[in-house]
């Protein structure tokens, strides 16, 4: 047995991993540095030359990366909220309050057998989940999280949104037809019919806002709602808001309009024959859709990233950390200790029954809270985009909560009642809304000159 083998045999698993990893990293790092030194200028020139493409690629990668955690978060929200409404506790074993449960679900889906039934149309069957997921995450790119945080500020953002969002139905149809199952077929056809019926009021309901703002770009629509609470379109276009909300509920296949996967009627709808990660794509796409439609609603009607109340002042905090010099690391080192002691002291003096370590823990928590609040305030003051993003996410997730709440409460509508509602009520109402808005605009402008 050679020496190397002997050493290798002595190593622990972690040691073996390191022994493999370190040389690879060293060599790889050396190579990359060498490449950068040699071709760095050229690469930078290329990137600088066609910045839009790079920006687009980066944006698409980032959006793709944020969809999955969003889906996990929404799945966990749904499990937990519906459980609490059912007087259950819900997931509580994995992670704090079961927060990791949905990730474990994702791993389970990954580990499941990916089964392709006989006599399915294999290419279509395989492509369908991809199409659905693509359609749902491509729409994320036009969502204006904040004025500075819009990955692609399309001028036709709203139109693009509806177009790509409608594309998901193609995937559902593909899944329904290709999986050679009657339940799947029914589910796919239901999805198509429902989407076609509700695209129309969905699109028509925002025409009023387009008339008011004169643009289709989502950032501009959000900007048009800046100002006080009453500038939000939900107060200026309440009828449109109601129609839009119902329509997006149907678009996202949420209860009470989840006829496409009505498990009491058609077992799992279009996803009946799917398993493993292919089913996971459908599953994620559903929740990403919920997030997207909530984001769209909050962007179009709830003022997007605008704060509901405009603060009269915007604090300007100028701290030049560099000016502290050597004190900075010292401060960073001793400030927590001093702060903890300072916060712990009053508690410790307050009562003799409180043990010292309890007082210290409480003081540490208090100091942590205070410092976090201070840093947050500082960040909010320094980076305005952060405040906007926070407002946007608050609105979006409150809407997500409303969707989950409805799922926990309402029974399902029958498919024909669903259609009838779309064609008989929502369509005329949205047309009425358009005419009223146009008339109002006409009168005001003519009155103006």
């Amino acid at each position, binding site marked *: 047995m050679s020496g190397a083998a002997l050493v290798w045999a002595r190593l622990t698993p972690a040691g073996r991993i390191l022994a493999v990893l370190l040389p690879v990293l060293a060599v790889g790092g050396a190579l990359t540095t060498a490449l950068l030194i040699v071709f760095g200028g050229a690469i930078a020139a290329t990137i600088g030359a066609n910045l839009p493409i790079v920006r687009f690629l980066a944006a698409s990668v980032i959006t793709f990366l944020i969809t999955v955690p969003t889906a996990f978060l929404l799945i966990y929200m749904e499990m937990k909220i519906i459980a609490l409404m059912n007087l259950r506790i819900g997931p509580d074993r994995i992670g704090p309050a079961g927060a990791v449960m949905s990730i474990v679900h994702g791993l389970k889906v990954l580990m499941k057998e990916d089964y392709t039934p006989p006599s399915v149309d294999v290419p279509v069957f395989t492509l369908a989940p991809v199409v659905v997921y693509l359609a749902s995450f491509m729409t994320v790119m036009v969502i204006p999280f904040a004025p500075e945080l819009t990955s692609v500020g399309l001028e036709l953002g709203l139109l693009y949104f509806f177009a790509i969002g409608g594309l998901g139905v193609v995937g559902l149809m593909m899944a329904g037809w290709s999986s050679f199952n*009657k339940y799947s*077929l029914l589910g796919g056809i239901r999805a198509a019919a429902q989407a076609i019926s509700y695209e129309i009021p969905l699109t028509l309901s925002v025409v009023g806002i387009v008339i008011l703002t004169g643009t289709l770009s989502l950032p501009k629509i959000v900007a048009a709602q800046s100002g006080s609470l009453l500038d939000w379109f939900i107060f200026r276009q309440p009828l449109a808001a109601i129609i839009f909300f119902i329509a997006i509920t149907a678009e996202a296949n949420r209860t009470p309009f989840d006829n496409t996967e009505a*498990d*009491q009627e058609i077992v799992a709808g279009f996803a009946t024959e799917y398993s493993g990660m292919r089913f996971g794509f459908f599953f994620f796409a559903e929740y990403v859709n919920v997030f997207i439609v909530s984001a769209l609603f909050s962007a179009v009607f709830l003022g997007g990233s605008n704060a509901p109340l405009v603060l009269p002042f915007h604090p300007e905090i100028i701290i030049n950390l560099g000016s502290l010099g050597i004190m900075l690391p010292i401060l960073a080192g001793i400030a927590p200790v001093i702060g903890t002691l300072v916060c712990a002291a009053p508690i410790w003096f307050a009562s003799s029954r409180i043990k010292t370590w309890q007082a210290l823990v409480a003081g540490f928590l208090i100091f942590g809270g205070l410092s976090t609040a201070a840093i947050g305030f500082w960040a909010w003051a320094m980076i305005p985009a952060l405040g906007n993003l926070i407002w946007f996410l608050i609105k979006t997730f409150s809407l997500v909560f409303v969707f989950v709440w409805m799922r926990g409460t309402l*029974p399902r509508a029958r*498919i024909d*009642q669903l259609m009838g509602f779309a064609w008989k009520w929502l369509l005329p109402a949205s047309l009425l809304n358009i005419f009223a808005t146009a008339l109002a605009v006409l009168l005001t402008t003519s009155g103006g000159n």
Partner: protein
Amino acid sequence: MPQQTRPSLDDPRISIPAGSEWYEPAPTPQTERQAEFLTLKDGEMFVNMGPQHPSTHGVLRVVIKIDGEKVVDLDPVLGYLHRGVEKLCENADYHQAICYTDPLEYVSSLFCEAAPVAAFEKLMEVDVPRRAQYIRVLTMELNRIASHTLFQGWMALDLGGLTPILWSFIERDEIVDMLAALTGQKLLYNYYRIGGVNGDLNHEFMSRLGTWMSRAAAQIDSNLGLINENELFVRRTRGLGVLDAKTALRMGVTGPNLRSTGVPYDLRRDRPYLVYPELEFDIPTRTEGDSLARYLVRIDEIKQSIRIIDQVLHEMPDGPVMAKLPRLIRPRPGRAFGAVEGPRGVYGTYAISDGTDQPFRMRIHDPSFVHLQLVGPLTRGNLIADTMAVMASLDPVMGGVDK
């Protein structure tokens, strides 16, 4: 199969080729009705619902012939849960027979015990002590409430609501724990004996019952507030699967399904048994006869059952709970038909004794078996979703249907 202009998925031209291992030849019709069912018209296709399906209560298989979303025809296929209980009862002695009938309808098993026990008591010509009669009424009404609360959860679940089933299971669990404290078992209480009941009321049961009675009515009402006036629920069930009184009588329908058509037929009134004649309660009836009426009649029965329990608790006499009987039940030769009014209808037992210690023939009649015939006539021409609503409103339990 006739030449079709709009091919369906059952068309051999696009279905699985005969060579493949997944190929199933079409079943050969055995009767006129089946032959008529198996012929497909333009664009019709079969959808095989069950035996494992989210909304068939138990293992029921329903072959549905649909045209698009419309249900053209429908053929329930039974027997997936068949245990041959009647044959088993003929090979067991009378006590064991009661034990066998217990798991027939696992949702309300006390009624499945009460019917054969009534028949055997007729055969033995034994008078049940009054306290035992009161205890039987009390437990049966409790079981009726448990079954109906569970039904309203089921109904909402089959219409797509997630929450009510869990709330009604909370209510049911309290009653079930109560009965477990009394009888020892949670689901299949084998509590009734020939000539009485297995054990007297104990303190745990009474305390649980007291706490439950203090808040049952309000709690159940607040649970109902979730869907009773919900527009979606009402729109889906009103005017769906309308059953008129004459058809109901000709189809042999009993129980709440019959009362929802306006016929106030209730064994507790028309064929008085136990101490029901001395108790005061109403027979809730509706005249619409649709799914909503079937639902609401059951909801009203819950309130009446609470009334009955209240009276029983006040009038409960003292005394023995078991009549004096030989250990080995050996009745005189004869025939007897015992029936009770259950949460789903008339549970009947027709027992023939030949003088031995085993019933010579024991026929068990279960209302769900009859009511399941209605699913076809009531859903023909409606949508697939309505099949679920109708089936849920008829409230069959496959354990009883398949015997």
